[in-house]
Each structure stands twice: as C-alpha cells, then as structure tokens.
C-alpha cells in the first residue's frame, strides 16, 4: 500500500520536476519565462504525433525536444534581441502554445499508443536535479550563469556574453518543458488530449519560487505538492468528504506565503531571488 502510494506520487510528479528545474535555470540567468504551460503542451503533442507517425520513441523524444527549443528560441529572440517585455512575451507563448498544440493534435485525439514505462525518465529527473545542483555550486559555468542573473552589467564588464548565456539558459528551460510534455503524453497519460497539461505549467512556475531558486528543494516541493494531490484523490476514493479544490489551492497559497516570507526581509530576498529577474539587458546602456 505504502509502496503503491509512493509509486503513484513518483509517476505523477515527474513532469513538474522537469519543467520546474528548467525554469529554475532560466530564472537563475535573470529571465522569467511564463510560457511553461505552452511549451509543455507543444512538447507533449509533438512527441505524441511523432510516435504515432514513426512508431519510434527516440524520434518522438527528439522531435519533442526540438519543439521545446523552437518555442523557447522564439521567446529568447523576442526578449533578448528585440528586448520585448518578458511577462507579456511569456504569456503570449503560453496562449500560442495552447492554440497551436490543439491544432496539431486535432486528428490524434483518442488515437491509442503503447505507452513507455515512466521509470527511466523518473530516474533521469532525479539525475537532472542533482546535476543542476552541482552545476550551480561547483562549476565555473554555473557561477557565470548566476552572475548574469544577479548583475548583468557586472557580468558584461567582466567579459561574459550576457545575451548568449541567457539564450542558452532559456533553450535549456524549453527543452526541459518539452521533456515534461513528452513524459506526460507518452509515459503518463499515454494519449493526447487538448489542453492536457491542465495548469501544471503554472504549478511548476510556483515550485521554483517555493524552492527559493534552490535545485534540491524543487524535488521536495514537487513531492509535497504531488503528494497532497494524490492524497486528496485517495481520500475521496475512501469517501472522505472534503472539497478537493482546497487541496488543489495549496501550491498557489504556499507559493504566496513563501514569497511573503522571503521578500519581507531585504537580506533574505537577496539570498533567494535572482536580482535581475525580468530586467532587460542592453549593453549600450
């Protein structure tokens, strides 16, 4: 029974881990991408359609990752080169992603596929988090990404290419969101349905704040959020009458609470949120 519950939580939570760890890297570099939901949907549909057409999991994975790179590349181009507003561009990416994924997937709703076992990707999700933790703590490149997010002008003066570093961070975030989408439509569901990510992109965004931009806490947060969601479903199955909506509110409420705790104190916000988050960078200014 315990094993069963742990198993369900592991399987259900992994897409959150992928999307959140990707967004964490993006935000560490000083960029806020609100397009997670859209990128996850496009990653999910492109994986699914490719699998139906080619019958190859590898091809599905590759196409899905490419879709994530294209979506996030579009975002990166707009906010980094054309200096578009990050909040508006991210929202546009989500709205666009919801639309285009529905159009692409229209013919494939209800098409049956053989799902892939989730365990391989579950292990990968842990490894990615551990790697990103190591990356920011121990590697020079990790420190550079952090520096770009904390003070882009200083990083630029030191000779680092701010735009390039942010571009690559954004692409990594896109690939991770697409991977979350791949996992969702190929391993978890396994099927395609319009809007199937159902708000998980926003929960992943909340997770990054909950984790106060620390990689290992992404796992903690994801498993708490995921665990509560699973518990709620099980309680209802046992006939416990409690409105599930209040359980589902928890990620959002907790995120606001965490924001209040870390933002009230000047030192604490300095230790947590990247200082240049959402600020555009123009080297001529």
């Amino acid at each position, binding site marked *: 029974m315990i094993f069963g519950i742990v198993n369900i939580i592991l399987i259900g939570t992994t897409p959150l881990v992928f999307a959140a760890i990707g967004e964490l890297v993006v935000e560490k570099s000083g960029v*806020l991408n*609100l397009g997670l939901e*859209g990128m996850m949907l496009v990653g999910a549909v492109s994986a699914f359609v490719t699998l139906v057409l080619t019958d190859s999991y590898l091809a599905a994975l590759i196409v899905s990752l490419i879709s994530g790179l294209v979506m996030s590349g*579009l975002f990166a181009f*707009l906010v980094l*080169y*054309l*200096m*578009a*507003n990050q*909040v*508006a*561009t991210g*929202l*546009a*990416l*989500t*709205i*666009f*992603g*919801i*639309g*285009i*994924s*529905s*159009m692409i997937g*229209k013919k494939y709703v209800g098409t049956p596929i053989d799902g892939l076992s989730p365990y391989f990707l579950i292990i990968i999700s842990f490894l990615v988090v551990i790697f990103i933790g190591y990356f920011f703590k121990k590697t020079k490149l990790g420190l550079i990404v952090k520096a770009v997010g904390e003070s882009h002008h200083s990083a630029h003066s030191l000779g680092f290419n701010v735009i390039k570093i942010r571009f690559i961070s954004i692409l990594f975030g896109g690939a991770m969101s697409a991977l979350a989408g791949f996992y969702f439509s190929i391993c978890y569901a396994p099927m395609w349905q*319009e*809007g199937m990510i159902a*708000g998980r992109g*926003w929960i992943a*965004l*909340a997770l990054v*704040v909950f984790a106060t931009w620390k990689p290992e806490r992404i796992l903690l947060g994801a498993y708490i959020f995921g665990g509560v969601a699973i518990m709620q479903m099980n309680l209802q199955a046992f006939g416990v009458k409690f*409105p599930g*909506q*209040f359980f*589902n*509110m928890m990620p*959002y*409420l907790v*995120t*606001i609470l965490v*924001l*209040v705790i870390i*933002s*009230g104190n000047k030192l604490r*916000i300095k230790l947590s*949120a990247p200082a240049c*988050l*959402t600020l555009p960078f123009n080297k*001529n200014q």
Partner: protein
Amino acid sequence: MEKLIKLVPRGSSSQSMFILAPIFAIFLTLLTGSIIFFLMGYNPSNALKIFFISPISNAYGISELLVKATPLALIAMGLSFCFKNNIYNIGAEGQLTMGAIFGGGVGIYFYDISSVLILPGMIIAGALGGALWAMIPALLKTKFNTNEILTSLMLAYIALLILDYLVVGPWRDPDGFNFPKTRPFGESGRMPILFQGLRIHFGLIITLILIAFSWFIYSKTIFGFQLKVSGFSPKAARFAGFNKNFLIFSAFAISGAFAGLAGVGEVSGPIGLIYRDISPNYGFTAIIVCFLGRLHPLGIIFASLVIALTYLGAEDAQLFLQIPAAVGFVFQGLVLFFLLGSDLLVNFKLRLNN
C-alpha cells in the same frame, strides 16, 4: 543578424511607429495565419474569410463581436492603470472571477425577488469583489515587497478554484440535475438587452462610460499625471514626492474593480447564472488587448474589437472548417509576438552595416 543590421537608438521614441506597430503586427499575424492555414491544407483566402469576415457580416455577428469586446475592453482599460505605472497585475482573470462570485452571489441570493435594486447591487458587489481580490497583491507588494507578477497570477488560480468549489458545492442548483452550475438569476438580476433579439447588453454602456472616465483621469487629473510619471521615471516620481503606495493601491483597485465589473457583466449578461467556464480566458487575453491598444482608451477599443474577432472567427472556423476553436489562441499569441517584436522600431532605427 547583428552583423548585417545595426540598431540605432532614436533620440525620442517615434510617435508614428508607436501607432503603426500594432497595425503592422495585425498585418503580419494575418500573413502568418494564412501560411498556417495553407500548411494545414485549407485554402487560405477562404479560411481567412470564414475567420475574419463572415462572422461580422450581419447584425447578429456585430452584436456578438460587441458582446465579446465588452469585457475585453473593460478589463484592458483597468489594466492600463497598472501597466502605465509599471505594475504587472496579470491576475485579472482572478479578479473577474471574484467579481462574478460577489455580484453573482447577490443575484443567486435574491433569485426569487423582483426589484430594480438587485442589478445595481450585483454591479457594486462585483466591482467590490474584483477590487478586494486585487488588493491582496497590492497589500503584499507594499507591505512585504513581494513580486506582484507571481502573487496576482497565483491568486487567479485560487479564485478559479473557489468558483469551482461554489458551483459544485454550496451554490449548486438544487434543480440542476447535479450539473456544476448555480440556479439562474431572476429577471431583476439580468443586464437589460440593448436591442431586441440580440445579445448585446447594458454592460457595453458601462464599459464605454468607464473608458471615458479613464480618459478623463489620464488627461485631466493630477492622479493620472502621477501614474504616468511614476511609470515613466520612478526616480522623478520619488523626487516629486508622489505617494508610491497610494498609486500602487489605487492602480490595483481600479483594475480589479473593472475586471470584477466585467465578471458580473458576463454572468448577469449573456450567461444568467454561474458555472465553471464563465470566462474564455478574458482576463489573460485582456493583457494582449491592453498592449495592442497601447494602454490608450481609443487604442483599447480598437484592439478589443480585433481580439474579439479572433474569438468569433475561431468559433466559425470550428463550425465550418472543423479547425479546433483554440486556433483563436494561435492568432492572439501571434499578434502579441509581432507587436512586441515590432515595438523595437519605436525606439530604434534599423540601419544596414557597411
């Protein structure tokens, strides 16, 4: 690209580009849209006609366009108070939902009473509900310095879950066969219809009055001037001694109240009760309307009509071409991409490098 074309900053931003960029963005969206239709195997000119022209080729279509443009314009006008001041309230969807809950709550409570006071009561309650919900990010921002982008967004999802709880729980229609919806409001709880047989309702008048009111605030009052200055140059605003917290609170309150009014307009106008999907993303789409309309009253009216057309066109495309209605979102996303991209031309000139 950087090697071929050079960006030369303009001394001051170009006024003509400021107005032309949205038009340019709409044109590029139509072009990209026809390419997408072509790639999907549809005749682009036929698809565009079904999408953008036939929905508004009769009185009913025009009325439907106004039904959809009304909440969009109202929310966008409210948001402009925040965006002008560089406050990113992106939780209008939640403020709309709270407006629908507060205003609709009055309508449900008095469902069997006939009185001319019910509708005004709903409208006031709706505006209050939206404003109260918007006060939360304002309070957290001024008191705890929290990022309003994240808090207002999170609150939007909390509001949607509260609505969900109400319509499946305590407010569920006792005669509704367990459907997740409330009982219908009484006749006194409905917005008057403007033209017999069409759905366009009194909410349009409220919207137009509030847009005129906003124009007045922006162009004739010190408060409007302070909002603009503090958005344009926070430093100047500080030196001038403007009360920053007051501006934050009032911008949130106004945008929340407008979104709340839009919510109550939806439930007491075309819908007549509360259920889960009272808003097809109006609160988020209004952000596009606000940017496309350049935060300006006239621009917002124009942009709300354009974006409302993407909703209508998507419905027709689904009906006649079997394209999912979500194609409207593709157009909405594209138009914002192109607008944000072409905004570069407002502040920079492109010059070839030789």
